[in-house]
């Protein structure tokens, strides 16, 4: 399997812009970068999960409108649509709500029918330190359930300091493809209006 070594800073830069290139607002794209970097710091390659989540989004295979329901069984993040919820959209919201709820001993959060449950759990873990034990590195659509009585298992891993993360080449190529969507095509006009344009550097 072909691999590539990336610094954490580099990983964050590309993941943020790949999510932005996939059409997410900047704030959600920042969360994607935080989650990817956190996974890398724990020693996991975030590229396969992120690539799958990006493709789900841009292939129009995921819902992006998240709805909140409160019931006797807990707080539920769901959608009115028929497709699974995008993990890139619902993950940050799940982390928000779990951060708000987690001190309540009766807290229970359900994120229903997510395209990549592992990404949502990683989002929550990156923010709160909870949930890593139940993270699945891959897997199809499903629910994420967090509860104060055990589902919110504590992360066992500390930050690793290898100084870089090794990513799967094929998955990273997909991230890069989405990253390029965040760039503005160059035109003759923009090129000639750039900083330093037209200068003959012979001074």
């Amino acid at each position, binding site marked *: 399997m072909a691999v590539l070594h990336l610094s954490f800073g580099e990983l964050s830069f590309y993941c943020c812009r790949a999510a932005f290139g996939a059409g997410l*607002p900047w704030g959600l794209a920042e969360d994607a970068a935080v989650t990817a970097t956190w996974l890398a710091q724990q020693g996991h390659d975030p590229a396969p999960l992120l690539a799958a989540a990006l493709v789900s989004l841009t292939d129009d295979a995921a819902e992006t409108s998240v709805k909140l329901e409160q019931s006797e069984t807990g707080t539920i993040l769901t959608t009115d649509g028929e497709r699974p919820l995008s993990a890139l959209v619902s993950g940050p919201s799940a982390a928000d709500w779990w951060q708000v709820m987690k001190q309540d001993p009766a807290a229970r959060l359900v994120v229903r029918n997510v395209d990549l449950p592992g990404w949502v759990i990683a989002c929550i873990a990156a923010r709160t330190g909870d949930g890593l034990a139940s993270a699945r590195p891959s897997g199809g659509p499903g629910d994420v359930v967090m509860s104060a009585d055990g589902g919110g298992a504590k992360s066992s891993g500390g930050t690793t300091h290898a100084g*870089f993360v090794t990513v799967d080449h094929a998955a990273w190529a997909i991230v890069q493809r989405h990253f390029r969507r965040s760039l503005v095509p160059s035109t003759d006009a923009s090129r000639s209006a750039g900083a330093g344009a037209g200068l003959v550097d012979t001074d």
Partner: protein
Amino acid sequence: MRLSRMGASFPTRLSFMRSLLRRMHRENWWFEQRRFDLDVQGFGTVVLTAHTPSRAYSLVAFSHDLPPEKRTDRVIAEAWDATFSLYDGIPSDTDIARLAANTPKQEAGRFTPRELVLGRANRSLRLFSHVTERLAAGQQPDIETVAGVGYLMRTTAVYGSGKFGCGDRALIADRPELQGAFQVEMLAVWLFRWFTVMLIEHLARERGGDSAVPLAPEVRGFLGVGNATGLGMAPFLGRHPQLVHAWVTARETALARVRSLPEATDETRAAFQRLLVRARQHVGEWQVDDPQQMVRIAGLHQDLARLSEAAPGLLDAAAPWDRVWQFGQARLGVEAQELLLSLLLEPHGALVDDLAEQMHVSEHVALDPAMRLSELRRLIAAQQGWVDALALDGPETEARFWYYSEEKLEPRLGHRHAEPGGMLEMPLAFARDIRSLVADLEQAEAEAVDDTIVAAFLLRHPQHRHTVRRVQSIAGLDYAEVRDNLVADGVRPIDLLRFKLAFFGASKFDPKSDLWTRITLFQGAPQPDELADADPDGWAFAIRPANGI
């Protein structure tokens, strides 16, 4: 934190180059040339190592043959006169071979966590040729010609913080010598400056043989390193508001300490007067092509003359430094006010230098999803009231947009209403985004039966997530934001660049347009082989040596 003032910034003794040299001198760093492998044309490899009390850092520099048609300072360049990496430690032959295969490729190369900085530079052709010919003939260069440029080579990009596989800042953030902002980049550039002197003296020897002479110490010290800086620096200020706050807080605290002194000692009074004379000469030697900047320099020159007349009387009174500052506020233009700040700090190292250690932060950007919307609105009203003073209606108020071009990721500033790509803009329209957030918060408050929380609001308005997080993260930080509209028609990115470059310690700002500038770094500073016996702070407001050396 208005653009008009930021665009008049000057370096101070708290600037990053200054604090680096003080530390190196204090800790007795020593420096060695570990490899010098240049051919008769000056092409090849040089390795220069800085030894701290506990570590080593090595500049691995490559000198290349650059075809004229490939010569450009732009990010989109693909070849340079020289390229370099700063290596964490002492590189082995294998490391140097690996870098030789990658460093010259710059963005197209791949690096490891052992490389902390990546950079490149081009020669100043007219000065390089002149100095080489003179030294080869056994003569020193004409000082007017040297002063007209100020450097032999100028860097066109210096990358750190994990770019292209290089080591992340987190890897070095706990090392005292590199904790400060941009210390590792400044170290690389300072070593590179030494390389430029070695290179030109080598070429002179190759050309002149026994007739060749080395640079006179005065000229050697006067030569800095040039730099061409464009739009890439501006987004940094937007992405790191907590860091910017730390920088400005240190500077403002230093000024407050000096102003609060009840009297001036004979020593500080004399130092101030001496520096004022020197600063006037420095400004007099500051010549640029840009007519607008030349008008500002002329005004600055007049203001400094006014200050020189008034200073003796002001310094004889009680609270003298505050009186000097108040005089500046009342009687001088903004360029002179900013230079005066630098002058006031300069004689007071013992009072202010500790603040240089506080110009870095462990940035913590976090969303508080439990915050009530009413609290968020109060926070915005308290912190972002400056937005209300800006005109934000009409197409001219969002005429521009900042973006990364697909062409080598070159940062560019587009015209929103005439070019494609506005939807892909970088998040630098803070004022507009705050205004939009406030409008939706007001709407949410009008619709809600109770005071809801941020988590619920962001479910319905995910487009505000970035702005809410930013607002919460800079609560209480008065200097975190540029209090202007960065996408308005007429915005001058060069104001942002000068602000940041002044914190680096750059001088001789030479604007080439509203988008980019040339500067000089380390002009007048000791070279590595001179540092041990030099005053590490003796190079503020560098002035040219006398001709006929």
